């Protein structure tokens, strides 16, 4: 492929989209295959792996054209967690088998990281993977797994060595989910939904080729995968591409208070203003971080977003409740405003607990951003089998 100017590239992709894409194709399962075949899915990647070996600015041109046409499938070299992780760390046979299907959306995936005993302390996992030469046998329990019921593979961390400190005995796998030893049980959450599952693994077999990175080096592979995940979530968190605007549509809390007839209440007004401010300040922080990043300077602000979002969600739910008063006693379809307020009250914990509790986030911010010392880690340098796991 010869080098193109930006204009040439823009023309090419625009012409290709004009020729191939139409909004009716949304949901068409063959679309992604065409995008992949044309080299638009992962333009930064090598030609061997469906790419065009383009630098970021040219890849952005392609993504922009897709965005303008509202066509999906481009930019997967930034956003496809599974394919990126696999390409970076997978064995050749596994890559040959799955990179294409992953880009074409033909493979259902899920994450098998957390365990009942390993939440904040993810490196404390106790699911075991025993090396049997050409395969590993896995036993254990995972939790907080979404989309597990339809998954073909799960990205799994499991312990392969119990005689080294906890971070060093972990391995990372693409675990085939469609086999008898995998039992997926929906987990009823406090919101009365079942978005997540528990996954029980009993003598589950994983081919040796499905190991990513080397045995015992799974913690490093996990960090790679988590970095992809964060960067994707960061992209998503950055708000509309048109930049941050001051309020145009009425703020939901103002609308709610107006509807409930309490917008004149001076005490509520202070609370509403503050809740809106938290949200707006986070948007401004994110916009500033994005501007910093665009100028090539790293920004410490992104790391604050999750903690800020936790406060925003809890506070908004609190103010909604204050606005509704006695109406918040109810739930169900006859009480949609109360249903919202109560759901948001509970679901705020999804953010303040999930993906690292607020407390863990404060550790991370204090240590990585502000440079404060880490706490003593009692279990860091001892063989995992000697680590304390029972309280009382």
């Amino acid at each position: 492929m010869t080098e193109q100017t930006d204009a040439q590239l823009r023309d090419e992709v625009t012409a290709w989209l004009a020729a191939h894409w139409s909004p009716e194709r949304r949901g068409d399962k063959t679309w992604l295959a065409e995008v992949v075949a044309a080299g638009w899915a992962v333009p930064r990647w090598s030609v061997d792996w469906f790419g065009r070996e383009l630098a970021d600015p040219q890849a952005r041109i392609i993504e922009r054209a897709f965005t303008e046409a509202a066509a999906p499938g481009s930019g997967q070299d930034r956003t496809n967690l599974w394919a990126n992780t696999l390409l970076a760390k997978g064995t050749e046979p596994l890559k040959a088998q799955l990179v294409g299907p992953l880009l074409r959306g033909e493979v259902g995936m899920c994450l098998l990281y957390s365990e009942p005993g390993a939440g904040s302390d993810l490196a404390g996992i106790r699911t075991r993977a025993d090396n049997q030469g050409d395969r590993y046998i896995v036993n254990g329990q995972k939790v907080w797994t979404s989309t597990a019921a339809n998954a073909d593979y799960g990205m799994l961390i499991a312990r392969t060595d119990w005689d080294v400190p906890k971070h060093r005995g972990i391995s990372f796998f693409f675990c085939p989910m469609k086999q008898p030893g995998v039992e997926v049980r929906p987990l009823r959450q406090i919101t009365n939904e079942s978005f997540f599952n528990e996954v029980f693994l009993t003598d589950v077999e994983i081919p040796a080729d499905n190991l990513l990175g080397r045995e015992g080096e799974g913690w490093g592979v996990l960090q790679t995968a988590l970095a992809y995940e964060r960067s994707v979530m960061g992209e998503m968190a950055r708000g509309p591409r048109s930049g941050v605007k001051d309020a145009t549509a009425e703020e939901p809390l103002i609308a709610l208070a107006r509807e409930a007839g309490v917008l004149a209440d001076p005490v509520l007004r202070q609370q509403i203003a503050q809740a809106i401010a938290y949200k707006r300040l986070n948007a401004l922080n994110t916009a500033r971080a994005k501007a910093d990043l665009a100028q090539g300077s790293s920004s410490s602000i992104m790391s604050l977003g999750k903690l800020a979002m936790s406060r925003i969600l809890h506070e908004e739910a609190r103010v909604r409740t204050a606005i509704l008063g006695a109406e918040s006693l109810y739930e169900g379809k006859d009480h949609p405003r109360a249903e919202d307020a109560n759901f948001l009250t509970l679901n705020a914990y999804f953010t303040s607990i999930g993906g690292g509790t607020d407390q863990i986030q404060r550790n991370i911010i204090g240590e990585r951003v502000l440079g404060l010392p880490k706490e003593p880690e009692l279990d860091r340098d001892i063989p995992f089998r000697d680590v304390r796991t029972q309280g009382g």
Partner: protein
Amino acid sequence: MASLSAEERSALQDAVHRLLAERCTEADVRATMETPEGYDPDLWARLSEMGLPGLLIAEAHGGSGAGPLELEAIMEEAGAALLCSPLLASGVIAATLLAALGDEAANARLLPAVASGDAIATVALTGDKGAWTAGGVDVTASPTPDGWVLDGAAAHVLHAQNADILLALAHTAAGLDVFEVDPTAQGLTIEPAPTFDHTLRLARLTFTAVPAQRLEASGPVWDAVQAALDMALVALAGEQAGATRRCLDFTVDYANTRIQFGRPIGGFQAIKHMAADLLLEAESATSAARNAAARLAEGSPDAPAAISLAAFACADAFVTTTAASIQMHGGIAFTWAHPAHLYLRRARADAQLFGTPGFHRERYLQQLGA
């Protein structure tokens, strides 16, 4: 109102504690909260045998003639166990309202069944807005040749779907009055409303020319209603204090046993310091609830201030503690199977019944002369 001795009170509280430990476990609560009636008739019968529905009812009407101190003590137990029961509706609000109104004929007719637990009574106190004031009543009573009829709506009525005896506040041309209504009367609809706190039963009532019997009042009617509300607030404060303490206890237990990073999470200051702050909340709630009961029991002029203080201090403590409890537990408490959210749901409900914390802070300041 005759109070029990401290020893008798303590014995009663212990007995309730033991009964609830046995018959009102978390599994019992979960089973009961899924039933339409929302309480366990067998457990209600046992509680009735112990005299709880009649606790505040005069001995002449089959009760034990005890008072706020005893009520607060047993409500701490009820709150800790998340007891689902019509006690607040029947034995507290209806019983106190009837006694305070002083319609002796009605009392002789109604109170014995309330005291024995054979009948469940409730009072329609307010309209949809949930303003627990005379202005909040949205039912009007009109005289007809055949007697009074009621029109309008009442909301947030505790256990109305289970009520054998239904009382309703209504405006007449002359002012507010209390009426007795047959729960099965024509023109009355009782719609159970699905509550976020599944251990609670509330209903909305609509009245269309519902025949009703006016109760005689020996004094201003609102004074009697306020007496019922104050007693309800003392009960609620006890429930909140007891539940706050129980929630803190199981949270601390978890923090002592949950190991992350090779040590119990309660050893980390993030958790430890939250727990310390919650202990202050829990102890303050207990002090406030008991003080409100004591002031009401002795008929102190400070009782209204003490009750309002307890109302917002206990409500806030309960919400704060249960909300923090989920955070301190982490993922496990994000599951339906964990009890923490049941306490949070109860806390959010209790913070609305009979006035929000903000309403009571304002009332407190007024009671202090401001």
